Structures are given as C-alpha cells and as structure tokens.
C-alpha cells in the first residue's frame, strides 16, 4: 500500500509543480490559465491523498469550478491574449528570479529540514486513526468557529456587492445591439410614425443609443 501512495504522491507532485511552472512562464495567457487549472486539480488530488475528502471536493468545486472560470472570463473580457512583452525583462527579471530561488533554496528548505516537528507517535499496526469527516467539520464551523464563519459570510457579501459596483457599466453607456424582433418592431413603429408625424418627434436622440466609440 505504501508504494502505491508514494507513486501517486510523486505523480501528483510532478503535476502540481510542472503545471505551476508552465502557468507562470507560458506566453499565451489563456494557456497559462489552463495550466493553472491543472495545478488546482493536482492540489485537489493531493488533499485526497492526505485523506481530507471534504477539502479536496471543495477545492475542485471552488477553484476549478468557479475561480478559474472567473479568470478565463476576465481574460476574454479584457482581450489581451498575446501581448508582445508578457513578462518583465532585464534586471527586473533577474532580481525576481534571484528572490524566488533564494527564498526556496536558502530560506524555506533549510528551515523546514532543520526544524523538529513534534509528530505524534504513529498508531499501532492494524488500528486506524480517528480522522474527522464532514459531519464534525460542519458542527465545529457553526459552534466553535461561529464568529469567524459570520465574518467570512459578511466578507463574501461585501465582495459580491463590491465586485458588482466596480465592474458595473452604466446602462446608458452600453452599446445597444438590437435583436431581430426589436428591429422589426422599430420598423413598424417608424412606418406608423411616418404616416402620422407628431410634434414630439423633434426630441434629441435618446441616451440609450449613444455609442462609446
């Protein structure tokens, strides 16, 4: 059983690190987003290996199902698929790489290797550990961590309203595209009006037709 876990851990790790690398270096930003999705998926698989079922499922539901879709939508709405210079160049690139590599090789890895983690004694052979499941998690979220839960709820509501307010485009400034049915009605309206012109037809153009360009 241990070999099976080790092999799958190696595969998942390769998926996570490889797709993360691709995601920050690849030129086309849509490809970067797709690699990012692969990386999220790998992290979900890692949670599954760590026997955190609920978190793994939540990771897939929220990261793969929602956040990555949001990112893809944002990319398509800003229409900057392939820009000439997609990364910083010159000394900035060098400084950035040095910072990241130093952080990894000189700070993080030595620290986590030299520190002594107080690992509890492994359970006796045959006996299985008592792992918590979604039921315990749900109970603790609404009893022990109730205040934090409420704060997160308020935060989510604020984020929802904030995102709408920030990205809202006024109706008057939006370009109006008519559907076929509307064009037909328009035609009918204008023909009836031509037959019997009224004084109110001297009005200035309605704001709904103003185009940004």
């Amino acid at each position, binding site marked *: 059983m241990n070999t099976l876990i080790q092999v799958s851990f190696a595969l998942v790790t390769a998926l996570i690190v490889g797709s993360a690398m691709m995601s920050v270096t690849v030129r086309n930003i849509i490809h970067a987003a797709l690699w990012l999705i692969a990386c999220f998926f790998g992290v979900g698989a890692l949670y599954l290996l760590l026997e955190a079922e609920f*978190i793994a499922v939540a990771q897939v539901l929220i990261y793969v199902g929602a956040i990555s879709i949001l990112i893809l939508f*944002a990319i398509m709405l800003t229409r*900057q698929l392939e820009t000439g210079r997609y990364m910083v160049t010159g000394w900035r690139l060098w400084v950035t790489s040095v910072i990241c590599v130093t952080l990894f090789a000189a700070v993080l890895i030595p620290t986590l*290797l030299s520190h002594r983690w107080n690992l509890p004694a492994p359970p006796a052979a045959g006996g299985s550990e008592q792992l918590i499941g979604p039921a315990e998690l749900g109970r603790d*979220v609404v009893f022990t961590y109730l205040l934090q839960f409420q704060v997160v709820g308020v935060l989510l509501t604020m984020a929802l309203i904030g995102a709408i307010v920030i990205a809202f485009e006024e109706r008057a400034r939006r370009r109006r595209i008519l559907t076929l049915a509307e064009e037909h009605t328009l035609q009918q309206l204008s023909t009836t009006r031509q037959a019997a012109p009224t004084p109110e037809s001297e009005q200035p153009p309605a704001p709904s037709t103003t185009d940004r360009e």
Partner: protein
Amino acid sequence: MPNAIPLEALLAVAAALFCIGLFGALARRSMVGVLMGIELMLNAVNINLIAFWRYLTPSSTGGQTFVIFVITVAAAEAAVGLALVIAIYRAWQTSNIDEVDSLKG
C-alpha cells in the same frame, strides 16, 4: 499516509509552489497573470495547513476549518480583483500592470 511520506516532502512541495507563485506575481506583466500567481501562493498555504492537520492534529477540526476560510477569502479576492481588472481595462484600454501608473509622482 504519514507512514509512506515524510512531512518534509509535503512542505517542500508547498514551498516550491509558493516560490513559483511569487515569481508569477512579480514577473508577469498582465494583471490577470499577477492574480494567478497570488492564487498559486494561496494554494501553497492551504497545502501546508492540510499537511500539518494530517500529521500533527488529525483529530481536530482546526486545520480544515482554516483552509475553508482561506478558500473563501481567496474566492472573494479573485472576484474583486478581476472586477478591478475589468474596470481598469475599461478606463485605460490596457491590462498591463506597468501602464497603470497615474499615481507615480
């Protein structure tokens, strides 16, 4: 799982993911790319939390609850951040982070 893989391996994976995310956040020029780097860093933190929960306190709910809160905050951050990207694109016609510099003296 704790018998098969040492805790340090998981922490190393998380550290690598964090550094890659940091590189992405610093080196990418497009705003969406920067946000993607930040999401990678948040994922690295979550891996750490779950690894510590599994190896150190498997019978308490603290670690998993914390991860749920981190994921929630990440979702809120992504929503507001991408709304900002769209608003800036509308005002400046660009999504390149270096060109948005009207606050520079």
